[in-house]
């Protein structure tokens, strides 16, 4: 902004002809940089597409696809079979039953045959569950003041199954699978407890109805994503990834723009410009204007692909927020933030290599801190504080408020303030550096 304010003082001296020529020169330089253009347009498009497909597939693995599970059932009773029936009926698993395998074989199966998970049901599974059911039933008889066998209150060994998994699987994924198996085992165990209770209390009526009532999930969870809007917009991998990776692409222009500024500063044309009746502000302002347009075009291109193409290739189509004014503001401020940061790197770097290396690494760090890859809420507390200094985090917040929560201007106020502050600080840095070098 400071550059822009200082520029206003020069604008009286700068005629439109100069500005047009400068903008045209920037456009031609950009157009001649085919590698830079592909980095700014093709790379993010590919990135958005790949990341969205991968995340979408990961979600489908958990929600739509069946999980392959190797099973060795050595249970002498029937509960092991009942458990497997329930797992099969859940539709979540693709069971591969190989009862000839011993428990010691399962480790080898996973290591050498590419299996991901295996379940071993021991010979004493039913026996253990029945003893457990008997313990529960006996406790009830005791508490109801009825006759009971005190020996049944001592449970020698708790029943267990063994779960083997490939260590490449993510921890939260294996926990989810174990939780599902545990839920079905509880189901089997509860059924046995009801049978035992009916038997011990000599109730002659069949317990099937009670089992049905107790074992069926009678409380449903209605899930709602918090949103200001009424459109029922559902969060999905597209709504998350398209804005996130678009922001990353916008900021990654530091590689092209930063190097462009350095090149101009260190080559002879800049020396010549310094002797001319013109200002370097014009050069910087022209670059800013051209690259803000580039950033807006990046958004337009990537979002258009999200809206019009994703739906045709099996992904969720992108839903553009209804609040167009706020949307335009977030896009513009994000573009200005990205361009200002790139210009700042460009005026401070002493060589192209420095601009490229520092620019790219800093953006990757900002992206990591800003929640582009992993949501900030899963980060440790101190990292969450640090993440507030990442401009990408605020840009992402702005897009998420609009794309996921259908937020309003009021929800965006801190995002807008922070981004304006960030742009201001970058512009001040640019101005001070140029002034220190006696360029303005």
């Amino acid at each position, binding site marked *: 902004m400071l550059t822009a304010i200082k520029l206003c003082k020069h604008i009286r001296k700068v*005629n439109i*002809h*100069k500005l*047009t*020529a*400068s903008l*045209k*020169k920037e456009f*031609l*330089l950009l157009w*001649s*940089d085919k590698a830079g253009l592909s980095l700014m347009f093709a790379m993010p498009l590919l990135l958005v597409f790949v990341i969205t497909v991968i995340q979408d597939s990961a979600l489908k693995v958990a929600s739509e696809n069946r999980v392959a599970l190797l099973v060795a059932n050595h249970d002498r009773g029937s509960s092991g079979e009942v458990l497997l029936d329930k797992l099969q009926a859940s539709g979540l698993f693709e069971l591969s039953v190989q009862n000839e395998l011993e428990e010691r074989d399962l480790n080898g199966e996973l290591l050498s045959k590419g299996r991901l998970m295996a379940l071993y049901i021991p010979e004493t599974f039913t026996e253990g569950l029945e003893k457990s059911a008997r313990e529960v039933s006996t406790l009830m008889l005791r508490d109801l003041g009825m006759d009971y066998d005190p020996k049944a209150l001592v449970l020698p060994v708790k029943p267990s199954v063994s779960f083997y998994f490939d260590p490449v699987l993510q921890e939260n994924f294996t926990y989810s699978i174990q939780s599902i198996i545990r839920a079905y085992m509880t189901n089997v165990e509860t059924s046995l407890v009801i049978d035992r209770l009916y038997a011990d209390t000599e109730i002659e009526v069949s317990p099937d109805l009670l089992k049905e009532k107790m074992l069926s999930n009678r409380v449903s969870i209605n899930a709602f994503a918090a949103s200001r809007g009424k459109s029922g917009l559902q969060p999905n991998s597209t709504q998350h990834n398209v804005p996130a990776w678009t922001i990353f692409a916008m900021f990654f222009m530091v590689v092209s723009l930063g190097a462009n500024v350095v090149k101009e500063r260190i*080559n*002879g*044309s800049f*020396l*010549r*410009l*310094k*002797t*001319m*009746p*013109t200002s370097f502000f014009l050069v910087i302002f022209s670059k800013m204007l051209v690259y803000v347009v580039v950033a807006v075009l990046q958004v337009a291109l990537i979002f258009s692909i999200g809206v019009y193409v994703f739906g045709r290739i099996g992904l969720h189509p992108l839903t553009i927020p209804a609040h167009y004014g706020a949307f335009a503001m977030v896009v513009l401020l994000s573009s200005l933030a990205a361009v200002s940061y790139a210009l700042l790197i460009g005026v401070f770097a002493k060589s192209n290599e420095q601009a490229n290396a520092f620019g790219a690494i800093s953006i990757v760090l900002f992206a990591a801190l800003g929640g582009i890859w992993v949501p900030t809420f899963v980060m440790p507390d101190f990292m969450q504080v640090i993440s507030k200094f990442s401009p990408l985090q605020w840009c992402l917040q702005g897009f998420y408020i609009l794309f996921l929560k259908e937020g309003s201007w009021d929800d965006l106020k801190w995002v807008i303030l922070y981004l304006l502050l960030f742009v201001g600080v970058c512009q001040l840095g640019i101005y001070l550096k140029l002034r220190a070098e*006696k360029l303005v």
Partner: protein
Amino acid sequence: MDIGIHGVCYRYPNEVEDTLQNINLRIEPGDIFGLLGPNGAGKTTLISLLVGLIVPMEGIIAYSRDSQVLTTAAMRSSIGYVPQEYAFYPELTPRQNFAYFGAMYNLSASDIAQRSEELMEVLGLAQVQDKRMSTFSGGMKRRVNLAIGILHRPDVLFLDEPTVGVDVQSKYAIVRFLKGLNRNGMAIVYTSHHLAEAEELCNRIALLDHGKVIVQGTLSRLLAEHGQRDLQSLFLALTGDAYRDQTL
């Protein structure tokens, strides 16, 4: 335009010695003024001061026309500068470079078009005016470098080693072109290590060494005063024959 240089000193940041000490020179309309000297003498620093890239720490550089001192803006519009480096955008064509730099000199689009056509014709670049300059030879690049510096028809043209690294034909074309510009009234201030070229081109010279002007005046007067037969023998007599290697 007259340029008066009075008691100018300059020292680069972090240097312990002055690069230029007490420089006093005068450049007048019609001059082809050669700033000559061995490596590290201060020629490029003096040119940089004269075109306003850096500011003297002591002394004054006054630009005047008809006894009126020019403002910085007026001075910038009245001078042309051709640095040692290629001072253009190699990704663009000569025509696109002329359009940009011409506009920065406040020339109208029609003036730029007309003058760039003329210059490209004279400098033998008409056939390549729409080709990207990154594909040009060293000689072609030097000629475009020169053409951009005179697009706005300055009163004084500053050239820092304009023929370095070019072939004989391009060097000949550049020298001939500079003579033509001077005949049309343009003053030229020029640095070079090509002493024969300077001898052919310059009507006055200043010989610098260790940041000081050793001698200045017309070549014939200086040769007579020091009993030398040509510029090279004068140069070696006054600056010695020891190497002047520089580290960056």
